[in-house]
């Protein structure tokens, strides 16, 4: 049981990281980005390419992957999202474009690197035993990196100008425009930061298990569940939601077949929609 809690916290911190960006984009651009999970997979794969194929050290490879993923996100903003904003496209249009982008990214990964499972080239180390619980070093790394990233996000949102602008934008985009914020610039930063966090999430996922082209797709539902549970537009809600969903998914394996983990996220999401559609920390 305690083991499941540990596993849940590990998965939860990955979900939490990845969900932050999804939640921020959701409230700032006012649409659900269905390509979010595939950016996560992109980050994981780029790391794989640099470390396992090109032989770069894993940490450096991860850093390069995060930067490239963020750049890809910014490019997408220039090519797709910004022109659509200028046209005044409705959220439904953006949602459909995002699913097109998701199909594109996922199949680009399959095309380039194949559909099968991949592993990072990691030394196998023995886990630390605490009573009946085993924690691997990688799991500890995941939790620590996640905590550091969350603190960075917190610092960014509270202390930096760009972070404050993001919050202003997510509260009320018209007011933010009127007060002279360069909306396009803030949106580009939000894409970059949100997708960088997703990429980190993807890499961390690769530390604890295999990566595959569909990983982003499978993470999408739990991420949305986390965002809706935490309250759309609330980064802290997304973190909290992510951890709760991660814990719930892992704990469910005590009584349900592991294949139904996804159903747990689904049921929580439906319950939230019935009981409190604005989420725990939503306004």
């Amino acid at each position, binding site marked *: 049981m305690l083991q499941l809690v540990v596993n849940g916290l590990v998965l939860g911190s990955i979900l939490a990281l990845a969900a932050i960006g999804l939640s921020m984009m959701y409230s700032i651009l006012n649409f659900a980005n269905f390509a979010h999970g595939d950016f996560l997979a992109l980050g994981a794969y780029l790391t794989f390419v640099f470390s396992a194929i090109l032989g770069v050290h894993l940490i450096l490879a991860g850093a390069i992957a995060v930067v490239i993923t963020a750049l890809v996100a910014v490019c997408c903003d220039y090519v797709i999202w910004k022109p659509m904003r200028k046209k005044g496209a409705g959220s439904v249009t953006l949602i459909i474009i995002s699913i097109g982008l998701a199909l594109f990214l996922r199949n680009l990964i399959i095309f380039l690197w194949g559909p099968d499972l991949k592993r990072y080239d990691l030394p196998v180390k023995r886990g630390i035993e605490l009573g009946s619980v085993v924690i691997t070093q990688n799991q500890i790394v995941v939790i620590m990196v996640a905590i550091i990233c969350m603190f960075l996000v917190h610092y960014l949102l509270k202390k930096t100008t760009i972070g404050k602008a993001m919050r202003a934008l997510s509260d009320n985009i018209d007011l933010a425009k009127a007060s002279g914020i360069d909306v396009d610039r803030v949106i580009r930063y939000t894409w970059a930061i949100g997708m960088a966090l997703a990429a980190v999430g993807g890499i961390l996922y690769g530390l604890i298990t295999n990566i595959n082209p569909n990983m982003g797709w499978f993470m999408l539902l739990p991420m949305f569940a986390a965002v809706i549970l935490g309250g759309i537009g609330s980064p802290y809600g997304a973190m909290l939601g992510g951890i709760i969903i991660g814990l719930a998914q892992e704990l469910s394996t005590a009584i349900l077949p592991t294949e139904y983990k996804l159903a747990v996220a*689904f049921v929580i999401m439906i319950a939230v929609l019935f009981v409190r559609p604005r989420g725990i920390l939503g306004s």
Partner: protein
Amino acid sequence: MIEYLPYVITVLLIAAIYAIFSLGLNLEWGFTGLINFGHVAFFAIGAYTTVLLNLSGVPLLLSVIAGVALAGLCGGLLGIPTLKLREDYLAIVTIGFAEIIRFFLLNEEWLTRGPMGVHVFSRPFEELIPGDYNFFLFPFVLVVLVICYLLLEKLIKSPWGRVLKSIREDEDVPASLGKNVFSYKIQALVLGSMIAGLAGSLLAFYLQYINPRNFMPIETFYAWIAVVLGGSGNNKGTILGALILWTFFSGTRFAQGYLPFSPTQMGALRILFIGVLLIMIMMFKPEGLLGKKEELTLAR
């Protein structure tokens, strides 16, 4: 030429089945503005219910009806928590539902035989048809397609369809005129899901053997591309879209021999292309091939 006929018939048959499947989505998205990203779930429910019931001794027609009804019921149930909220919740919930259905089909072997799949027990009029069954099944599916098309056209041009279109543009207006917007959305979703369920039964008759791999998430987006390419909210366009899609697919099979890619890579390229096409249409030609620009409310 004649030796290609069975192949051509098969392509047309598949296109017709997917046209029916896509007409269901067009009712939801094209006319009502509902985003259903899990349309394949109802396809699967229709197919599996039909085959499994028939296998356990229920008459074929009754099995098909049950499949259609169950698909409709599931559609309605998904609408209840989502359709009063923002439009993207339905998209998220349906996408999750479709995956869960697929996992259910994979795991509940006592019912669905899991990844092994199920053989189709009997097909309509099978014992009466000599020779290639597809030569019968194609006109049969075509008749079903035409009936679906006519019934839908009748609905769309009726006061009921008018209410749907008004919801698509601005649901405050029908609400201010006494229309129960939520009920209409549920009706559109139920009917759309039932049509997908029917298409699922037909798919099972064509495949003769169904397994969870037939109902991957991408199937939903085949319907999306058919609808969006043909012109959202245009039933003729949807049928045209499905035809173009499957002609393209069969074309890529021929192209396979001339390109230096593995079958997996070809498959990935196809879907990659569909993704790009979806983006391009929504960005540059949101009215699709046959849609009217003046009626374009969805993709402003």
